[in-house]
């Protein structure tokens, strides 16, 4: 061990020794290899202590950098979809498709389109056993609706068929409101007498008349009545889709 203590050697390294002491030490270092070795060991030790600190700092910065890079990459990758999320997505797609379909139905539903679908015309049945038709039936069959209307207002041998054909003639002549009034009167009379003749036909043609008159509430109500009775003659003529379309027309009105 040299006579120099560590503090003096450090002062030499830091260049803070007085000039004469520095010169003295340098002179001795030329002769004393142990002193040189000691000084070198001190330099190395000081560097290693600093390096230990830098290593800690670098390590901490690296951990932070890698961690933030990992988070960034994770946020850029599409996350795996869970079962619930998948179901929700499917549900959302279905809702979207339904909404789209509803929009299409909404826009293509028009009074004309619905009337076109329900454009049946009453025809006088021809019975093979019957050789002759009444005059009102003959007129209706020939499309002489004004004559039918006139005849229906006079007493006829078969008054119920005369009333019904009168109502049909009004409908075919475009006198929709009068046709509705006449059909409602026939229905009312039937209820009083317990007569059910033409009951199903009256329901169907009332719907047709209400649609033409754009009275969608009443049209819907009669369609509900028809659909509630599977034995109704016109049960198969109306679907749920028709009810939906009637509601859409009501909304559009």
């Amino acid at each position, binding site marked *: 061990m040299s006579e120099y*203590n*560590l*503090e003096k050697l450090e002062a030499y390294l830091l260049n803070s020794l007085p000039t004469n002491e520095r010169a003295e030490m340098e002179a001795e270092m030329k002769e004393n*290899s142990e002193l*040189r*070795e*000691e000084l*070198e*060991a*001190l330099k*190395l*030790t*000081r*560097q*290693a*202590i*600093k*390096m*230990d*600190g*830098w*290593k800690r*700092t*670098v*390590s*901490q*910065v*690296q951990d*932070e*950098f*890698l961690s933030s*890079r990992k988070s960034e990459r994770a946020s850029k990758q599409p996350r795996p979809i869970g079962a619930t999320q998948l179901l929700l997505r499917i549900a959302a797609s279905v809702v979207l498709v339904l909404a789209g379909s509803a929009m299409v139905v909404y826009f293509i539903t028009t009074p004309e389109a619905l009337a076109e679908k329900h454009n049946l015309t009453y025809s006088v049945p021809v019975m093979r056993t019957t050789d002759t038709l009444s005059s009102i039936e003959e007129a209706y069959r020939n499309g002489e609706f004004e004559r039918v209307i006139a005849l229906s207002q006079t007493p006829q041998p078969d008054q119920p068929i005369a009333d019904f054909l009168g109502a049909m003639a009004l409908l075919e002549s475009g006198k929709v409101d009068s046709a509705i009034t006449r059909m409602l009167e026939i229905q009312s009379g039937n209820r009083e007498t317990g007569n059910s003749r033409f009951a199903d036909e009256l329901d169907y043609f009332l719907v047709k008349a209400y649609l033409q008159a754009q009275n969608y509430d009443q049209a819907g109500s009669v369609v509900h009545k028809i659909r509630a009775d599977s034995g109704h003659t016109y049960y198969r003529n109306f679907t749920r889709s028709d009810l939906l379309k009637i509601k859409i027309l009501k909304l559009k009105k």
Partner: protein
Amino acid sequence: MKLNQELTDEELIRKIADGKAMSPPIAQLYRQHYGMLEHYILKNSGTAADAADQIQEVMLVFVQLVSAGKFRGDAKISTVLFSICRNLWITELRKRKSTLIRNEKYMEEQEHITRYIDEQLEQQESLRVVMELFASLGKTCKTILSLFYYEELSMKEICKKLDFSSEQVLRNKKYKCLQNLTGQVRSSPAIKHLLLKALRHE
């Protein structure tokens, strides 16, 4: 006033040489150069974990070069970091017995590596041994020496921070710690040759 703006190479070197608030400039080195260095390791038989280990070492060597005034910006930082990285990685591959023929090729083809990097890397081995000796010191000794030589706190500040009864008591303690460490360094066969080599170069 600069906000969220990256420092230039010159500014980075100045900040690192200053030795205070080292984290921000080192973080910038990571942001700007980690990808390039990692790519090199991955392309040359390394894994992502190898890259992380090597790059930490690269940064440490770079900080030392700057701190010792051996690198003052006479080349681009990216060039110096890449040279350190390649040198370290070739050495690492050489150490691994599974070294492939193509790794030998790298060694043959390696470009001229600046002399100061070579010297620093050579010294790095000895420093690593001293760091191990430092790590084996008692907790108080390590704290005092680190606060004094790395944090560059004054004896007064350390005295207050570590609750010593007086500066003289602290001074004596620090002296003993340093003496103990340098004694171990001088008697370490692993670094004896470096000390002698350093003396021969003087």
